[in-house]
């Protein structure tokens, strides 16, 4: 069962992942197959576990101000800044559509 080009394109747009070549796509397919083995177990009536932390206690913090005030440090990593603001492009720049970008998927 192969992952369709539509799904791969969709993933590239959503997650900005670049599957790069046939090997990359194959790796994804193998990962899906690996996870699909879970279907072989009968889990009727069993609550799904979605975290190994499920029996841990969720620590609750007191509502005190203990952090912040480190503008200078945070902005050190910024490529561009304007008066203590981070600078970003005017909006999301969408990944060009399948036919218009350089991607391995085009040929598939």
């Amino acid at each position, binding site marked *: 069962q192969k992952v369709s080009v539509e799904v791969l394109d969709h993933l590239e747009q959503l997650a900005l992942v670049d599957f790069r070549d046939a090997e990359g796509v194959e790796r994804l397919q193998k990962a899906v197959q690996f996870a699909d083995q879970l279907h072989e177990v009968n889990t009727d009536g069993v609550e799904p576990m979605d975290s190994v932390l499920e029996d841990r206690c969720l620590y609750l913090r007191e509502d005190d101000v203990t952090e912040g005030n*480190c503008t200078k440090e945070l902005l050190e990593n910024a490529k561009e800044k304007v008066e203590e603001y981070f600078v970003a492009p005017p*909006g999301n720049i969408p990944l060009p559509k399948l036919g218009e970008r350089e991607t391995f998927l085009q040929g598939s």
Partner: protein
Amino acid sequence: LAPWVPVVGLEIHAQISSNSKLFSGSQVQFAAPPNSLVSFFDASLPGTLPVLNRRCVEAAVMTGLALNCSINKKSLFDRKHYFYADLPAGYQITQQRVPIAVNGSLSYSLCIDNKMSQMVTKTVRIKQIQLEQDSGKSLHDDTRSQTLVDLNRAGVGLMEVVMEPDLCCGEEAAAAVRELQLILQTLGSSQAVMAEGQLRVDANVSVHHPGEPYGVRTEVKNINSIRFLAKAVDYEIQRQIEELENGGTILNETRAFDSKLGCTVPMRDKEGKQDYRFMPEPNLPPLILYDAKSLPANMNHQQVINIDWIHERLPDLPSVRREKLVEQYGILPEHSFTLLNEDGLAEFFENVVKQTQMKPKKVIGWILQDLLSYLKQHSLTVKESPVSPVLLADLLSLLEKKEISSTAAKQVLAELWKGDGRTPLEIVKEQKLQLLEDQNELEQICQAVIDRQENE
């Protein structure tokens, strides 16, 4: 022409009133130098982890209880992924699968035909309340084609209140949100000031013919006040009806309300269906809440949230307060609505009643007509009133004791409004407004007037 049934569902984001953020210890404050209230976690620097703020959980439980919800003793956190410059992590931590509260209801009142005297109570079902992070703020600089990002708001705790689509028009939406706002302010779980972004409302609107399936819905955002909420919803309902009657179709899109033009327009950045790729938040175990029965014996009580303890300490909700005002003071239900609708007015009224001889049923007229209209004319809040409760109480006592007439009382009030420190009694004496009851004195004055007439 077949009738149209509008369907309106609201998603409301209320900023939690807390000192620090939902998952970090940086401060929550409205106006501050950009990026000064930001911790390493808020900026999504690698190696940082979320730590849940107890106060935020309590706020959500209080709100859930006040809205008649079932509180989930076990709720989960998830990641909702999307890219935007003001969301540094590339995902928002929210509660999509199992939120903290579900299946509640909100009762609100509407005036029939704009007459205050006929009020009807309606209910809107609450689907769920979830805890989630707020994003930072983007300032769009179109001239330089860039966006400036301030992360001060990133990570602030939000309660998202999701309502079922039980509303049918702008008026209902406005009334429901107003009541929710009052409840949140009474609880203190959110200050819910829309102008400061503490309460944000998105409206989902669709129309259909009775008996047919629901129509395609649009989402309307960028609504900045309760008044605009009513306008935006009504405009969108009309727009959809006209579009469909002209043979067009409704796109499942996100639209922004333009308050200047009074219409909704498609939003640029939200084209295409979003796929949020929800996944469990791997860094947070389930949130477990307790009640009196399930309270664990040996746990550190700072780590335990007891739903029953919170329930016992809930303040009187607005609906209860209104009932008490009506019962205690004999005022009309619509009066109680107006009293609670203005911040501080109910307290002002009760303070006056305490300090005056005039009966509450008469005092209410002076509060709702004279005082309130003065405040509105001068755009003042009750707190800013130059006339204090004690001054008004003194004035009304003079009137009640028949020392002045009702006309004179209005005159004195006008003088009191100047706020120069004179008391009602001083003004009455100064302007000779006392009612005279002494027979001889009255005869002398009348005689003097008659004499003057004869001399002219």
